[in-house]
């Protein structure tokens, strides 16, 4: 699946070394609890960032702030030169440049797969239906779902729905893709098909911020891994470094929860 996806997709000029997303001193609170505590971060064009952290630490909140689905209480978030602000008038135009994929897919259940994909490009970007359809069919084919174009979401498996959700986001030609635990709701045998799509997008040079609990995948796809803990990014390192030599005790503990000691009798010490 990775192969054909490597071909170019519109909306992507690969130019690394240029800040695409900047967060400066971002603070996010829910009532009294501080979720993001003075976070500063830059994502360069073409970078793939994986964000990890224990459940409830604020990963989803961070993605939602970037997409202005949540207001922030301090700091500034920018996409290129434009400020992302839930109250700004240009919000819809900024959101078009940020593709978001949710854990629960969030396809529109009353529309076919194709209509799900066409809706925003047609209504928001006012592009020609024939052009988008052509592009949608190509993308669906690349993720192995061409024959599902006329199906309704309820007729698809979780993995298929998630691949459609990715295609739907891609058809808006976003500059940045956000993935929020997109395989967390999937049966194990479907995880791979979705991760392969994301890997292919990474190979294409797309800029992505990915929240995941799939550590092997994180290692394979990431240029940098961020570890969020108590509202702060306390690790920010290339994957080899993060997984082999985490600097903080918290990250070590976190990574330990993903590994298992052998417990079979013959391997046990002292037997």
């Amino acid at each position: 699946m990775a192969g054909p996806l490597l071909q170019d997709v519109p909306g992507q000029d690969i130019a690394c070394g240029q800040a695409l997303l900047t967060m400066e001193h971002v603070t996010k609170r829910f009532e009294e609890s501080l979720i993001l505590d003075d976070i500063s971060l830059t994502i360069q064009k073409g970078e793939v960032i994986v964000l990890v952290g224990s459940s409830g630490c604020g990963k989803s909140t961070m993605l939602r702030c970037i997409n202005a689905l949540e207001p922030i209480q301090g700091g500034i978030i920018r996409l290129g030169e434009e400020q992302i602000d839930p109250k700004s008038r240009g919000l819809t135009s900024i959101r078009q440049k940020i593709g978001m994929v949710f854990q629960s897919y969030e396809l529109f259940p009353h529309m076919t797969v194709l209509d799900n994909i066409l809706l925003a490009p047609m209504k928001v970007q006012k592009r020609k239906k024939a052009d988008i359809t052509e592009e949608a069919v190509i993308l669906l084919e690349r993720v192995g779902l061409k024959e599902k174009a006329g199906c309704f979401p309820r007729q698809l498996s979780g993995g298929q729905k998630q691949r459609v959700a990715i295609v739907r986001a891609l058809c808006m030609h976003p500059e940045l893709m956000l993935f929020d635990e997109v395989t967390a709701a999937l049966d194990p045998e479907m995880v791979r098909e979705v991760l392969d799509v994301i890997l292919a997008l990474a190979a294409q040079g797309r800029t992505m911020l990915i929240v995941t609990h799939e550590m092997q995948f994180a290692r394979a796809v990431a240029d940098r891994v961020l570890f969020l803990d108590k509202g702060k990014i306390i690790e920010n390192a290339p994957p080899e470094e993060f997984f082999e030599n985490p600097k903080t005790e918290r990250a070590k503990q976190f990574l330990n929860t993903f590994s298992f000691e052998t417990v079979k009798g013959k391997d046990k010490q002292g037997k």
Partner: protein
Amino acid sequence: MSLEFITKYLPLYEKAAWLTVRIGFAGVVLSIVIGLLCAAIQYYRIPVLSGLTAVYIELSRNTPLLVQLFFLYYGLPKIGVRTDAQVCGMAGLAFLGGSYMAEAFRSGLEAVEKIQMESAQSLGMNRYQTMRYVILPQAFSISVPAFVANVIFLLKETSVFSAISLMDLMFTAKDLIGLYYKMTESLFLLVVFYLIILLPVSILGAALERRVRYAGFGA
């Protein structure tokens, strides 16, 4: 049963049936308008108006239509508003139906999860587009069963119109029974005419329900 009686008074029933249909239809349409307005006010939590709407809904749902009609028919002239029985019938039905429709639409709107809205917004849709293409179609299909039940309920409620001397089906039947003691024939015609009115509505409603059944569910 006297066939002669039935054929003789068929035209009278027919006339009464048209009256029932006319007022019922107008009442239902007005109910839908009021229901949409109230549901929108409550969904967007518009200050002051949403409080008033809540009061209206409780008042309307917890008083019998007959009482509401009496208020309109005997009460309004007391404060100098002249009303004829037909207008009262429509207004009463709309007053009752508005709250039922409001509840049907509101529960449909609220059943669409907030994250669907966020999903639409994350694709760059504005508030109007999100409502129009994502929320309303789903809310509508969720509301349909309650909506259909309400329409049938309201059409049946028209049977109390006779109390404000509207010459509807019920009035005609009671009248004929009083005049000629032809109980069986009068009631037979009454049932037949209500069925003629309500069965098509039921069948249409069921078809509508079938059409939209899956739309809102099983994301």
